[in-house]
């Protein structure tokens, strides 16, 4: 009883210590998480009939979420690679946050996948009856996705361990300190393994999975696999900057030095150029080479709700990100840099929406219209509630664990001054 009272008092005091804005944010997130639980149970127990997906529109919001989360979470492998393999030490203050975001992105990708499949209880079939085909490479892109995603998720989990070990309560013990220290030292191995794995599943889930559908003019193109990898390195890095920057704003302190942000922003900007060029080639080759193979024209495959405006927007976002992140003047100003990374993230979100929404809406028969899709309340709550849970976990890490070693050092320094 005494402990209960203590815990309750602790919670009340914590709550009171938060600013008004944080309290409101937490209430909104809590509401979404509650909705996630209620509607999640409904979907798991009563099925996907409660979504607006149907036999014409097989994939919806959750798959956009999956594609987006994996591509944006892909910033973790790029950042890790640049830090540990290229030895760009400026990224050190960002790495913990990056690994955590990567982990959360992959975690919720798997969560959304479980919601999205009709038989969640059979999800393990992906491991026990994989479609490997005769050779070494898996036959189904989805088999590849399931395995690769799982392995990379484990890698991210291992990469995550040193963060809680660095907490001052645990770090006191020499053994734990040593484990954390050596894990950190050996992290380049994980970074290399992660990059290797990421190349495959970024390519397959983001592009290859769609590019192999030879029956569908809106998706088929053999190079889509590679486009998705470039996309993930370009947009993912922007996303990592955005999250850490937001955390700093919320916590009202410098969690990551501007220098680190700019260093990664430059990488993002350069990759965005590669993405723009590749994407332009993609559109060109679709229009001149691949869609005509179906006796259709590229422009005619666009229509309904999801018109060509989506493609235009995607290019505008990419261009915006390039201009801001590549030109030093804009990149070095905090405000514009943030616009740049938002633009970069939006370009990726747009591309994924095009893949799923536009792709699913294209009619298969000349006498049928474009199909529309309007997510139900269940889909919204599972989607937003899932993201809200991820945000809450991130906030918890940021508050209680050494997620931003730079900020901690800084804060301790201030204490000493005082």
């Amino acid at each position, binding site marked *: 009883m005494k402990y209960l009272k203590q815990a309750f008092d602790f919670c009340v005091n914590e709550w009171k210590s938060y600013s008004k804005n944080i309290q409101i944010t937490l209430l909104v997130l809590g509401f979404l998480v509650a909705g996630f639980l209620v509607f999640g149970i409904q979907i798991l127990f009563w*099925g*996907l*009939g409660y979504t607006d*997906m*149907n*036999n*014409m*529109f*097989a*994939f919806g919001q959750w798959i956009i979420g999956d594609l987006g989360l994996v591509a944006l979470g892909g910033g973790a492998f790029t950042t890790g690679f640049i830090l540990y393999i290229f030895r760009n030490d400026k990224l050190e203050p960002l790495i913990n946050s990056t690994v955590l975001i990567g982990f959360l992105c992959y975690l919720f990708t798997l969560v959304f996948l479980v919601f*999205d*499949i*009709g*038989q969640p209880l*059979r*999800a393990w*079939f*992906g491991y026990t*009856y*994989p*479609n490997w*085909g005769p050779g070494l490479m898996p*036959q*189904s*892109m*989805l*088999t590849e*996705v*399931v395995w690769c995603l799982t392995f990379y998720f484990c890698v991210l989990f291992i990469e995550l361990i040193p963060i809680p070990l660095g907490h001052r309560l645990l770090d006191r013990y020499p053994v734990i300190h040593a484990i954390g220290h050596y894990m950190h030292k050996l992290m380049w191995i994980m970074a290399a393994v992660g990059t290797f794995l990421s190349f495959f599943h970024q390519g397959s889930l983001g592009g290859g*999975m769609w590019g*192999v*559908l*030879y*029956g*569908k003019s809106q998706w*088929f193109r053999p190079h889509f696999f590679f486009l998705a990898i470039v996309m993930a390195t370009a947009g993912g890095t922007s996303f990592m900057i955005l999250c850490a920057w937001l955390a700093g704003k919320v916590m009202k302190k410098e969690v990551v030095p501007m220098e680190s942000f700019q260093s990664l922003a430059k990488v993002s900007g350069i990759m965005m150029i590669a993405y723009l060029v590749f994407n332009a080639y993609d559109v060109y080759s679709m229009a001149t*080479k*691949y869609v005509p*193979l*179906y*006796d*259709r*024209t590229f422009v*005619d495959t666009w229509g309904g709700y999801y018109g060509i405006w989506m493609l235009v927007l995607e290019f505008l976002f990419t261009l915006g990100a390039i201009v801001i992140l590549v030109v030093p003047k804009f990149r070095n100003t905090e405000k514009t840099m943030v616009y740049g990374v938002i633009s970069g993230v939006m370009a990726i979100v747009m591309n994924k929406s095009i893949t799923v929404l536009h*792709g*699913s809406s294209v009619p*298969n*028969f*000349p*006498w049928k219209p474009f199909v529309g899709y309007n997510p139900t309340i269940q889909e919204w709550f599972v989607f937003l509630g899932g993201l809200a849970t991820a945000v809450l976990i991130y906030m918890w890490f940021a508050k209680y664990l050494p997620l931003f070693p730079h900020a901690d050092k800084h804060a301790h320094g201030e204490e000493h001054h005082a």
Partner: protein
Amino acid sequence: MAQEKKKESAMKRRWGMAIDLDKCTGCGQCQVACSQENNIPLFEDDSELLKRVVFLDVMKVTNDRDRAAQYPNVKTAFIPKMCQQCSGNDPKNPKPPCVSVCPVVATDVGDDGVVSQVWSRCIGCRYCQASCPYEARQFNWWKPEYEGSFKESLNPEVSVASRGTIVKCTFCSHIWKRERDKMLARGVKDINAVQYTPACVSGCPTGAMVFGDLNDPASEVSRLAKTDRAFRLVHTIDTWDEAKKKEAQAKKDYPNPKVYYLSSQQWLRDMMRFK
């Protein structure tokens, strides 16, 4: 043993269908027969068309595509559409759009060319549904239910699917298995299209549907598939000249369905092309 297998494969059939759209009246009997044979769920309210499960859909097509056709020139046709049993470019090494994509091997192509689907293996990811250009794969969005006394008339040879799985037309492969076993018991190792006929074909009152072996040049279906009246759904590559066709096939597979449609009406054939 190995020898026996070789002998069996020498007898391989390639089941196909030819549907004469000029004979089809759109009565829907094929659909009813299919639904009854394959335990298609029957909900009290089946008005949610896009979430309904039907293996065979009778599609209505008119020449009024741009709202331009005027009375009395408006024309209508009905197209019974089931799984087209695609083969990919090379029927000897079949590669339908939907088979290689399945992450859990719930679907495969038999050595008679029929594309199977195992309900109880399916995890419901719907990747095959997205891959199918003929909208032939259906998902059980709701738990299959059978209104009233329909439960008593379920077909014991076809398993009732669970909610959240993909189902599709298999050319009534359970009939093939049943009839094959019957013939084997009599010592006959091969069966023909008379012994094995899918439910829709048996149900058609106008004789618009013909089923048979496309490997046998003497079969009626082979003969019909080669006539000038034959075409395949939205498969305009058939109308291209050989050189262009070869070039296109080098770039990608084509579904190459084993269901042929027949019509003498030019407008209907024109409808197969996207404008």
